[in-house]
């Protein structure tokens, strides 16, 4: 089944105006993050995109997207928001009963595969495997508190993982017990990339969990954990990197990554060298090296 619909959630209370943050992309063109995301979505043969936004922000977001794609985009305002899965449920009527692509509005991606974007790689895998697939990225355990994390068995000879468990923001204690995946380096776990191909059953599961939880919405990880129990559900390590705008220095890192992967690489590198040469930390400053 072809994947023709997509949902981008950009209404999270923590996301704020991050999707509107402007970046110079790898082509040297300044544009909002949302525009970069939309270009990523339409790099694949997606026919229709739903963007879920905070109430009253449709105009700003549609300006950010630009006219070129507007005809294929539907904005839905998440009035009276009840969480992440609530945002997805708002888009259910548009995507209907088919599998759909889902991206979050505060991550940007740089593909390491010169021929294919990250979305293209994901859709290709989902089409080939004919099941739900979430992109994942090996991430240091110190960042576990930011992501949903998957555990399971590696599918032999591929970049795929047969997902058995999904836990939202686990502690390393839990991750070590539940979420070790063969082939992933010590101290790293497969965290969500912010990009999924999901079946319509996630909507059913979401509603069931709401009922089970007395009206409270679940996290997407809880929904996907249930999905892993019910259907074949894979993870894939794409050739590419996810940049989370929402973590400390996330926008700075993202901008540097875009610049170093693009036409302005030399110029940016020379500016960095100049910065390094000019600014030294004061003697008393604590160096928070990573």
């Amino acid at each position: 089944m072809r994947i023709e619909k997509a949902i981008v959630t950009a209404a999270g209370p923590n996301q704020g105006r991050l999707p509107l943050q402007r970046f110079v992309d790898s082509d040297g063109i300044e544009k909002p993050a949302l525009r970069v995301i939309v270009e990523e979505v339409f790099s694949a043969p997606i026919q229709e995109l739903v963007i879920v936004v905070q109430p009253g922000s449709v105009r700003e977001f549609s300006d950010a997207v630009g006219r070129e794609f507007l005809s294929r985009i539907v904005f839905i305002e998440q009035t009276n928001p009840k969480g992440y899965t609530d945002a997805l449920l708002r888009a259910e009527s548009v995507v209907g009963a088919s599998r759909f692509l889902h991206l979050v509005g505060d991550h940007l991606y740089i593909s390491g595969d010169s021929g294919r974007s990250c979305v293209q790689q994901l859709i290709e895998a989902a089409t080939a495997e004919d099941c739900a697939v979430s992109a994942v990225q090996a991430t240091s355990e110190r960042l576990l508190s930011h992501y949903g994390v998957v555990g399971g068995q590696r599918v032999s000879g591929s970049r795929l993982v047969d997902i058995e468990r999904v836990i939202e923001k686990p502690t390393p204690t839990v991750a070590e017990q539940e979420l070790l995946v063969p082939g992933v380096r010590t101290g790293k776990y497969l965290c969500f990339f912010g990009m999924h191909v999901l079946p319509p059953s996630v909507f059913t599961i979401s509603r069931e969990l709401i009922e089970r939880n007395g009206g409270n919405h679940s996290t997407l990880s809880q929904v996907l954990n249930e999905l892993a129990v019910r259907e074949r559900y894979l993870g894939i390590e794409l050739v590419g990197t996810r940049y989370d705008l929402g973590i400390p220095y996330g926008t700075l890192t993202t901008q540097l990554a875009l610049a170093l992967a693009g036409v302005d690489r030399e110029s940016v590198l020379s500016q960095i060298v100049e910065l390094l040469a000019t600014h030294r930390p004061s003697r008393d400053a604590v160096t928070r090296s990573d």
Partner: protein
Amino acid sequence: MKPNLIEAITSSDPRLRDQALERLCESANSADLVAVCRELDAFRRTATNLYERVRALFFLAAIHRYHLPAKLPGRLGGLVSHAGYQHLIERRFDEAIDEFRRDFESQGPTDAVSSALAAAYYELAFTTLAGQVRRCVRSVKGNQWMFRTGHALDHPLRFRKELLTRNAETGQYPVLCERTPVRMDLSHSAWSDIFFLGMDYPEGAQVLNVSIDLGVYQRDANPRPPVEVYLRVIDEPVLRLASVDMKARADVETVGGVFDFAGDYLGLVKAGVIAAGIIPPGLEGADQRLSEVFSVLLGPGLGLEVVTKVNDIPKGSRLAVSTNLLAGIIAACMRATGQVSTLEGSLAERDRRLVAARAVLGEWQGGSGGGWQDSGGVWPGIKLITGERAVQGDSEFGVSRGRLLPQHRLYGFDEINEQTRRKLCDSLVLVHGGMAQDVGPILRMVTEKYLLRGERETVARQEAISLLKSIEAALVRGDVRELASATTRNFRGPIQSIIPWASNFYTETLIERAQREFGENFWGFLMLGGMSGGGMGFLFDPRVKTQAQGYMQTLMRDVKRELQEGFPFAMEPVVYDFSINDQGTTAVVLTGADVLLPAEYYALVIPDLVRQSSRDLTPLQRIELQRVSQETIQGGRLAQASDLLLSSLLPTMARANGSSATLPALLKDNGFDSELHEQIRGDLKSGRIGLAQNRLAVSTELQDVLPGDVWHADRDVTDAMRSAGQAAIARGEVGVFTLAAGAGSRWTRGAGVVKALHRFHRFAGRYRSFLEVHLAKTRRRAREFQGTIPHIVATSYLTDGPIRRALDQLATSSTSGPILTSPGQSVGLRLIPMVRDLRFAWEETAHQVLDEQAEKVRTSLHAALIAWAESAGCGNDYTENLPGQCLHPVGHWFEIPSLLRNGVLHRLLQEQPQLKHLMLHNIDTLGADLDPGLLGLHLQSGDCLTFEVIGRRIDDRGGGLARVDGRVRMIEGLAMPREEDEFKLTYYNTLTTWINIDRLLAVFGLDRTSLADSGVVSAAVRRFSQRLPTYITIKDVKRRWGHGQEDILPVSQFEKLWGDMTAVPEVDCRFVVVPRCRGQQLKEQAQLDGWLRDGTADWIESLGDWKA
């Protein structure tokens, strides 16, 4: 016949595998055993299976310790290489073994080298086992990440938001309060909860364990979970720790400070914080401030406070209070950081297992070591804890047969009903007997015996396992009387079959009197934990329980009073109220007006807060002070604690009957020489005397003695000598002089009790003290040879009263001759040690290196003790203890001068003028008796002194017999020019000396007549004493405080030693080599098991007349 020990180790057939070593070695001769040792040593080097390797090591240790020496008669000689010894104490066991094996091959099998090999194999076996447990703890999933978090910025934990949100009204952060019960074991199936056992024999590792709440009888209204942990966020980036029971608190600002376990009394709290991952072990050594860690974990500018309280439950309760406190701290910290699923209420099973695994890690971090069942308080109710087979995928698989962590099966109320549980509570009187002994040596003995598969041990272990089934069945049937019978059979049977030292005279007295008082209504005894004397249970008919509680309280107090002079009691005995806890560890978040910590906490912190200027307080501290004020003065929830808070703020009057009042009197009464004291202080401070100055000049020529320098009891004693000796005894020419003035500090680790009166072992069916053993030997010789043998006991300020009282009870039954005491005439006052002496003792003298973690703890402790010495004033008088603990005996040389000065010898010689000789011996040389052959040898020589020596084993440190600049003499270990010199010496001093009284008096310039003139005697003694060296020593002294808490502090004292008499030119000395069993000294309780197993105990029993 050469036994096939490798088959016994590797066979999968239990009939071959479970054969006892003693049976296998029975028919082997020394050549067979030497060959077997070669095979086993080669095997253990290549064996890949950990437990096969360890079993081979224990076999080797046992053969070298027990079996081979017994088959080497006449092979006393042999020298242990110093290089090997150096490897041994620095824990390079493999290298030590290689070195000792070279000695073994080049010298042939000898007692000395076998003792060294036994020690090295034994330590390597335990190190291998401990290493495996540690590796398992690290590799348990859920623990591993903590070891790779090496920088604050890598810290992956975050505090839960609920605990980071301040209350809008009060401004305070919420407090997470964890309450944890302790655990009581109804049966541990013969210590099967030791990790090593559970991991090798999971099928046999079974424990019936009950979580209980406690209250002190007649003090607390109701039992409650004794462990309370309070955790909250504070507005300073420090780790604030407080233990209200220890009255200790600290603000830790650096990562290094958290890993400093011995610098204060908060080591266990720190270990909990580390094991919970708040400060992960991977950060150890990171030169970082906690503000950096907390900035990631909590947010900038914030810190953490952990407060603990164990409701004044004393140490040694055998209820695993420490481990459950650790588990409570860990549970609270793991809840706060989301590592366990629930913030409040009880824990889920997987979370309990996680907390238990972290508690094991915490105990390792803190350098302590609990059992496998000890965190049982985390679980609710009654449970069966069993070992589990390791399976594919486990980190233990392929290494050990069992997993590190056991399985817990909770009994439902349908299995053990409510009525039975109530009946158990109504029947069992739970007590703390007041003794707080180190159970560590017992756990080592159990492990070794298990791996050697001793016949007695194997049968006992199986019996213990079947008794657990009986106890379980009794619980299921609701038959508590049968349960009591089974726990008693357990104590009487398997427990004491494996470890006779699990019981003691105190416990037996309590059982006997309780039985006598209550008859049929006394149902039985329950030993808790590793040994009795501390936490114990007495089961009664529920109808008499209230009466029994009162009775036990009085009984324990009375028996303690009777025995305390010879038993190391740490505290007054306590009776508990208890109830079964059906929730396990639980937590609640206190918010808003409920944010209150225990009153004792405020009593601890408020004095400091009110002393500070308001400007220096943080906003939260100001809020807290206001809250405490409201809750106290305005009739709030702390109103009842207002006295406590007030007394913490106001100065208290020093008690007039404190130590300072009686110390001067004691000094005056015991011949304290203040002039000499000031001279020693001056010399010590100026550096003229000290540990380094004890040594003879390095130019001293020191060699081992030559064959003709010593006599041998086994070949040089003739029948004629024996006859002469017998005749001398019959004529009343010989007396015994037992040195019992010392405190036996190694025996009870400085507890200051009278070792001579410690009834440590059953001889002829009754517990007897050291003193009784010596009197029994004298009695036997007197009866055997129909002579009158005076027995003099040298006493001191510490031992005189108790020994006199004990002798008053014994004297009526004595028929051997007069029993006298010779009170000491000299005493010293301990001094705060000089830092240079402490450094010399700890840094420049070879000492046993501990395992990695324990060594870190010790290093930190040494730093703290050096700081204590500096702050207390090096060279000042040590007075901050009980008066008796501030004084010190001045060395055994003074015992003979005291005998001259106190008039006892003079009176005795008048009453028994035929008395010509004394056998002087130390209280712990149990085998010394009036052997007529040795006496005959002494008589024939006509020498002034005949010293008994034994062939040296590796543990015999502290000097020996040597040629010093050509003279054959004893040399003290303190005086060795170089440490390694001691390893040149074949013979070790037993101190047992046959003394020709008249010749000794002549040496002092005295005779029988002049003994009557005390002035002449004193002058003679003073004159002679100046010819002997004065040694400075560092001794550990115990200071008790709180509820069974103890500090061990180093103090300086001086002494003159008897062996130096051999250096005086006009004293004729002879040296005779005696069998080890005769000369062996019992210095530490850990020696008892070997002493029993090698047959010495039975031999000593054969020397005594026990009928009195």
